[in-house]
């Protein structure tokens, strides 16, 4: 004879609970938190390097870096003089809310107003894990296919902004920027889109202004 237990619970319940705890901690300390996700090599760390220089003129910034191996990204951020914690996942393909919780213990959270969490380079897995962030930003670059949004819809659908990076390379590529944008909007009509180059700095000021505006909106609410 068998017995059936009806459960009806979220499989990632633990993660959701930890994410809620993170969100409460951020709100208590007035920290506006943004996560960044993309394929490896789209320019997440470069976008941070360029943006932090502008953003720190207006607010105090901090960064959590997620990578499968090495602290190379954290060292790049540290060299700017920005407080940073590296999470090395040792093989896990995404950050989860508990890992972020662990990293928060190493940051002086009371001194940070704007926190970036750079996820592991991966457009699939990070989409399933709420970290407790206020905003999700997805990056894609002109050296990838225009159809990334259709291939990885979960990530694009759950993000509020898309940064299309490496636009300085457009003259050398067949990449169709308009096509990429229209496919992204098909998956998520509410996406805010920025065209940037971390080599020339194009689009970075606009992106930073938007970040500050979202931040003021949320902290005022």
């Amino acid at each position, binding site marked *: *004879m068998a017995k059936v*237990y009806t459960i009806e619970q*979220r499989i990632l319940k633990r993660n959701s609970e930890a994410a809620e705890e993170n969100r409460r901690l951020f709100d208590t300390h007035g920290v506006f938190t943004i996560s960044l996700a993309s394929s490896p090599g789209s320019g997440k760390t470069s976008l941070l390097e360029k943006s932090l220089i502008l953003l720190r003129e207006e607010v105090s910034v901090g960064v959590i870096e997620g990578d499968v191996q090495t602290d190379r990204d954290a060292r790049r951020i540290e060299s700017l003089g920005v407080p940073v914690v590296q999470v090395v996942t040792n093989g896990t393909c995404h950050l989860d809310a508990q890992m972020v919780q662990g990293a928060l213990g190493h940051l002086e959270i009371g001194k940070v107003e704007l926190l970036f969490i750079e996820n592991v380079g991966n457009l699939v897995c990070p989409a399933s894990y709420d970290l407790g962030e206020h905003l999700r930003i997805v990056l894609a670059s002109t050296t990838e296919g225009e159809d990334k949004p259709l291939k990885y819809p979960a990530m694009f659908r759950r993000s509020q902004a898309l940064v299309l990076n490496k636009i300085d390379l457009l003259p050398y590529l067949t990449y169709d920027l308009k096509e990429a944008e229209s496919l992204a*909007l098909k998956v998520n009509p509410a996406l805010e889109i920025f065209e940037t180059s971390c080599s020339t700095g194009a689009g970075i000021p606009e992106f930073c202004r938007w970040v500050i505006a979202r931040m003021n909106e949320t902290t005022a609410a």
Partner: protein
Amino acid sequence: MHESSIVESLINLVRESVPDASQVRRVEVRVGLLTGVSPDAMRFYFEIMRDEMLSPKAELAVALEPLRVHCESCGADQSLAETAWLCPACGAGALAFLNGDELHLSSVEVEDGEGLHD
């Protein structure tokens, strides 16, 4: 490959949800189409992890939840078996998704170790 982490969370939740020493026979989950989670990959990891973490006899049943959409252009309410970004009725890109993010443990079937009569 995050299915491995998801299945690990699933098995832990199953173990928390039934009495200790239960022999789990069947685990039923519901997966929404917008999660990007692959049922095949879930089954693959489940079969690797069940022996040590649950029971070699445990089976995983994954039900893909139909995607309910409302078209804000033509007003049609539809239930889809595959993800679509354009309304199947009128072709407009104005679909509101009413679900799709499910990743739920529905039920767990265990052998009744007490050996009760029926």
